[in-house]
């Protein structure tokens, strides 16, 4: 399949309502995960507003989008269907045998300009994009989705150091701080805090915000665009269960199991919310 990518010159999309897009991402993600009964739904739930905001701000055919944690690619796939970048039928293949829409995104996944299957490597790719654009005086921004657990990988800090030194101000990291990794809450595995101070110390402009407040994410992205001397990072505080009240409270955020009954309830809940928002 020919991969459509965000920065391909012919790529076009429009986001009319980013708040609504976030709910659509959740609904599509539920529908992608439901046939298998399990999958990376928590990543879509925690990142929905961030992905919606990125697509709302990024210039189609120009700006570059990176998804560092490949498990999150479900959210950009869901957004891509809403925005007409992927055919709706493609989503039925999510995670299935022989499908180009793999459950864990890879370096060949469509939609994003770059998706990393192995964690902690996407920021380096984003740095490469930003460096290329600066070398060629190409007026483009690079948006990189990164997760808080990835900060455990040393390479993230290699890339952060490089970007800070190079003052790659056209690079914006949207960091999903959902406090979730495979073995449990991140803060039961290691101490990442103070996250804001860490990035600031590496020479980054830092915002610390509620990642489920779409308008706050949009405002922070606007402030990042105005920043002319440093790369920017948005520390988005989120939850892997946000926006889906019907999920059992003990759901494993990294890999949510979705029984048919819960999936049905989830579709109804999200559909009702979409109808309500239209009213």
């Amino acid at each position: 399949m020919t991969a459509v990518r965000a920065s391909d010159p012919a790529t076009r999309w429009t986001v009319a309502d980013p708040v609504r897009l976030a709910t659509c991402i959740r609904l599509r993600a539920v529908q992608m995960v439901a046939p298998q009964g399990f999958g990376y739904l928590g990543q879509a739930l925690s990142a929905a507003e961030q992905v919606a905001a990125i697509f709302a701000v990024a210039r189609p055919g120009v700006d570059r989008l990176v998804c560092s944690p490949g498990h999150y690619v479900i959210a950009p796939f869901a957004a891509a269907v809403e925005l007409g970048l992927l055919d709706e039928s493609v989503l039925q293949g999510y995670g299935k045998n022989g499908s180009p829409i793999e459950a864990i995104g890879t370096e060949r996944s469509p939609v994003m300009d770059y998706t990393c299957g192995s964690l902690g490597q996407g920021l380096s790719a984003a740095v490469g994009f930003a460096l290329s654009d600066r070398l060629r005086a190409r007026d483009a921004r690079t948006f990189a989705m990164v997760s808080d657990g990835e900060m455990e990988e040393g390479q993230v800090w290699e890339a952060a150091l490089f970007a800070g030194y190079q003052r790659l101000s056209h690079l914006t990291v949207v960091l999903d701080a959902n406090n979730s990794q495979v073995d449990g809450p991140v803060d039961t595995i290691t101490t990442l805090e103070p996250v804001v101070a860490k990035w600031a110390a590496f020479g980054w402009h830092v915002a610390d915000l509620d990642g489920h407040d779409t308008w706050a994410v949009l405002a922070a992205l606007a402030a990042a665009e105005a920043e002319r001397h440093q790369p920017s990072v948005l520390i988005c505080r989120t939850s892997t269960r946000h926006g889906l009240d019907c999920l059992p409270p003990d759901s494993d955020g990294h890999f949510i199991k979705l029984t048919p009954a819960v999936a049905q309830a989830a579709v109804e809940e999200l559909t009702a919310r979409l109808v309500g928002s239209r009213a």
Partner: protein
Amino acid sequence: MHEPPYATRLKPYGRALVDLARSREEILCLSGDLTRQCEIDLFQAEFPDRFVHGGMAEANMMSMAGALARCGHIPFVHTFGVFATRRPYDQIANAIAYPAVPVRIIGFMPGISTPGGPSHQAIDDMALMRALPNMTVVDIADAVEMAQVAATVVDLPGPVYVRLKRGEIPVMFDDDHQLSMTNAAVLSHGTDAALFASGMMLATALAAARALEDNGVSVSVVSVPVIKPLDAGTVRRVAADARVVLTAENHSIIGGLGSAVAETLAEAGLGRPLRRVGLQDTFAEGSLTAPYLFEKYGLSVQHLVDTTWTLLARSGPAPTASPLVADVDEYSPV
């Protein structure tokens, strides 16, 4: 071919990369804090805007190079072979080999050419890179080929790993010799033993062949600069004409040239006694000089002569070979 002792040329790779970059604006030069050591101080001086300090951060450097290649740049990434392969293996696999983007990874200081000890000796770099799908693997140590390698690989469609010796490089081939990515070079024909050699061991193989020929052993010497994709046709053809086969590489005998030749012979059903000369599944050690290591770990001319002689079951003691004269300025400590 020239005869030993070989004249040497200084930094043939670094000079050639600068020449190539004059006409190829897509070329970027990345350095992992080993700029002079990888001969790219020349590039930095000539094209400072296309030179990028990656610093001591190989993982970031490789992932970044993969993204740069996607944007249409042709990144030549430089560090020592050991750091270019072991440290950022996952990054090379995912960001470079899997999407098959044109990153050129240049790893200096192959095998035990450095007395810097196991931390600095790239004894498994070819094995690691050869295991990656889409990767081309090159091992050369002649000044004429080194001056050609950048231009020869620049337009290959996928990624390339090139291992290169540093500093003063022997001139073995004539100047009209052309490095080939597809054909191994059959330098002599013989019917007793077939010697396949890559990189620094080519000079060793030629010296060993001379000693053997002087004592009635008919030897083929094949220069195999490209370990992957291997010129299997030439390997089969030359091996079929000989009674025994030997490989010589400045690398572990596992996963490099010796393994590639063994696989080719076995798959062809070509039964020939085979000996792989190289590091015998061992780490080496730190020392003062590299020739000491080549002697101690069985990568000397005499060792290759002895191995061939024994494999052919020749009677009497093996002939004594002239050792290679160590190159001037062979080792610059870092």
